[in-house]
């Protein structure tokens, strides 16, 4: 980069000669200006939420957040203490726990399941492997909406199948009364995550060097040992990439939780909780900013701490539907 800059300075381009030094310098600085303007534009909404979350109720309602240094009473942490207290905020703290109870299993279990499957697709020989793999990955783009309704029925009443000719009903999934629980949500997330996870991990695992695998086979290691001792340690970067992607995805999900948990407020994750807080339009509106900010703290921390892996996951999996 530095070399290029020096070159342009020593050999002045015809454009620069034609326009004169000042105009050329001004025009060349425009991209930087535009970039900074975009950065400011992009951060204003979040900044506004952040500042508002520390302002008193009256201040929020009567003046813009950019006037916060004029607030007569200064800033406060009351919104945060109120919104975290169980009764007042409608249980945002509780909702955070529920979000974790969904996001943690919905992150770890698909990783394990998908790592095994990706390994099988990459390194095991069996008939129909290619078609099974294409079929699995093809499900990437199937929208969640397409399976939500039957899944809700499955979780609330179990799965039953009436065999046509002999007219007997078989239960293949018992009625475990899972509707309204976080278990139903993470089970569903696990299923939805798998095509993407298998795709992502398969790309990586199938790229591991062949000779490592062959030498292990000569040493008499079976698939499980090989997988456990070699493939998993070597795949840590891609596992991390998927984990962050999946964690943010499940933590931020609204539709699946809303459908499967429904009216059972005690099990609401934080997205539903703050959405319902936003729907109230009433006495607790001043808590909304604090609630929304709390709900985004964890993803933002994960994001800024592990951005490198997140970007890698996005780059590798940019076909996700």
């Amino acid at each position, binding site marked *: 980069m530095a070399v290029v800059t020096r070159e342009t300075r020593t050999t002045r381009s*015809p454009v620069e*000669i034609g*326009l004169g030094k000042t*105009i050329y310098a001004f*025009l060349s600085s425009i991209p*930087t200006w535009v*970039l900074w303007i*975009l*950065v400011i534009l*992009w*951060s*204003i*909404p979040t900044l506004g939420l952040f500042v508002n979350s520390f302002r008193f109720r009256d201040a*929020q309602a009567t*003046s*813009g957040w*950019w006037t916060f240094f004029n607030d007569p009473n200064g800033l406060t942490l009351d919104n945060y203490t109120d919104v975290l207290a169980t009764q007042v905020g409608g249980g945002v703290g*509780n909702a955070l*726990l529920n979000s974790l*109870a969904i996001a*943690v299993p919905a992150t770890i279990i698909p990783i*394990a*399941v*998908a790592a*095994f499957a990706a390994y099988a697709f990459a390194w095991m020989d*069996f008939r129909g492997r290619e078609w*099974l793999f294409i079929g*699995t*990955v093809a499900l990437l*783009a*199937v*929208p969640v*909406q*397409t*399976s*939500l309704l*039957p*899944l809700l029925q*499955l979780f609330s009443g179990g799965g039953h199948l009436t065999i046509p000719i002999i007219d*007997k009903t*078989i239960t293949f999934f018992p009625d475990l009364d899972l509707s309204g629980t976080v278990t139903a949500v993470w*089970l569903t997330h*696990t*299923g939805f995550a798998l095509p993407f996870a298998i795709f992502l991990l398969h790309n990586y695992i199938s790229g591991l060097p062949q000779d490592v695998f062959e030498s292990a086979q000569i040493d008499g290691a*079976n698939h*499980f040992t090989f997988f456990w001792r070699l493939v998993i340690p070597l795949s840590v970067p891609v596992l991390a990439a998927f984990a962050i992607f999946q964690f943010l995805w499940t*933590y*931020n999900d*609204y*539709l699946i939780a809303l459908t499967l948990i429904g009216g059972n407020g005690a099990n609401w994750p934080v*997205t*539903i909780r703050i*959405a319902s807080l936003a729907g109230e339009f009433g006495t607790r509106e001043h808590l*909304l*900013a604090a609630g*929304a900010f709390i709900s985004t703290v964890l993803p933002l921390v994960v*994001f*800024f701490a592990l951005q490198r892996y*997140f970007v890698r996951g*996005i780059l590798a999996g940019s076909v996700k539907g």
Partner: protein
Amino acid sequence: MDRVIATLVGVGVAVGGSALIFIGANKLFDLAPRGWRWFTTAIGATTGLVAFAILWGNRVIFQREGMPPEWVWLLLAGLVGAVAGYLLGSLRDWWARMIVGAAGGAVLGFLVGLNMRNVILVVPDGNAQREIATPIPSINYGELFLWVGIGLAVGVALWAVRGRTRPLWRGLVLWATVGWLFGAFLTPELNTGLRSNAILASTILGLGIGATIGAWPLADKQTHDRVESGSRKYIFLGPALFFIAASLVIPSIRTVILSFLDGRGEEAVGFANYATIFTDANILDLSTWTDIFTSSLFIGGVVVAGLGLAAAWFVGRARSETFDFGPSNLSLVALGLVLIAFAMFSILRGTIINNLWWVFTVTAFATAAGLAVAVLADRSRSESFAKSIIFMPMAISFVGAGIIWRFMYIARPPVRDQTGVMNALWVWLGQISNDSTDTAIVVTVLTLVVIGLGYISFRGFRSGVDGVAWGSIVTTLPLIWLIYRFLGPGLGGFEIVEATGEIVGQPIQFTSERPFNNFWLMVVLIWIQTGFSMVIFSAAIKGVPAELLEAAKVDGATESQSFWRVTVPQIMPTIGVVVTTLIVTVMKVFDIVRVMTAGNFDTNVIANEFYDKAFTEFNFGVGSSLATVLLLFILPILVYNIRQMQKAAV
């Protein structure tokens, strides 16, 4: 605190349990070559447990009065299975194996028969109640023996067809058992039988299955190894395929089936649900299409796009190219096209049109903005910081983003201060355009900028740098328009009260003023998705070979030429990926609309319509057909992506 502990325990059980099952299954099959009898013991125990668990889940086994609860029988079945498994894994003698197999099966069958449910269950089914018959058969011996006879005949026939290579009796035992299953359980009337019938039917069934297993000779060393190595693919793939089938494949098929049934999912109605969707004026209303061509948006769009094309043509002519798209005239053409599209989408109405509007706008803006930021940041010293900020909304939930933008869009009554950034700016514009001093300052500044741009343009023309010259002229156009607004009709949100001549700030109801409230909702998703496309474009741009750009420079290409002639063709596949991914994401948009307007004020989209129909009105038929429509919209993109993926894999 209790919640914390309960959550931790729940998560621990879920994660630990799955890990144990996984590792346990692998360790179990590790046993096969080393300790065959222990392997068969474990398999026997698992078979007994799982079989009873399935029967329990199907309510075939049910706690009877005065009997121990189901789980006791479950454990007993596991024990019997373990003993039988151990013996079958060690005994070599044919008779001993047969006896152990038959006896083990018979005992398990007896346990089932003993515990078979003899009460009719009443379960809720929607608003009604449904009775579940008992599984106890009322055996008709004539039919039973007929079925067994058919089974025997099938066994003989298969043996003959397969060239008589396998022992005949093994097939006979197997097929007689299948015949028994049909005659004893699947065909007779259930619900009315006696306990003795239940015990007889299930004991003989168990005996047959057990004998079939016992008839296999004791496995040799080769078989042990084959079982070990052959099992892995099932263990490795099984859980994934199970989850995918249970949560994606089977439910999707069921949704398609439900879309052809009535609202309660009972009677077939053909395409009636689809007809309902496409004739509903709220979902699709094309009746106003003639208004498009007379709308100011459409005419403005044609003019602007024409201007841009003309500018590009003038510049291109100087370089003996048809068109030359620098940043400014390209923006003009793009703006014109966007205006024309907006004319179309804002005049045609309905949920489906809204969805298409979303797809067009968010995909176009997020792709363009992402590409622009990637290009701009690529030369910048603070690249990673700028990219982090633009990328950050990707980490925020759609719900959170909806709330964040609610604060941006909020409209307070005109008499009070505006607390949302957008309306505050809008009303502030209104104030300065009604204040003569402010207007004078603004107009002076704008005029100076226009004069400056004019000078740059003059220098550009004189030295033959047409791109810069035309770009500057084009940039003056919106500024001149601004000067006109400030001097003439005014700009921004204000209203003059006729009686008093007082000027009152007039905010915009961003989320409820139709039809452009749709656009303000789309801005939220653009804000989120620009980071996504920026990250991908940024990586792609860095992947463009430096020699190519260097060569273009040596050949005297301008910045815009090397961008359009070198960079863009190089990153074309990436553009395809970004556009398709965005289309799929935007097609399913739900959360933002749900949180910000709940689909009111003409902002409904398919996913929200689906949610309302399926889970608020409980109309499963129409809900499922909306989901199917969504799937059909996405299907072509799915096919395209798979093609691309296969190409990339090769």
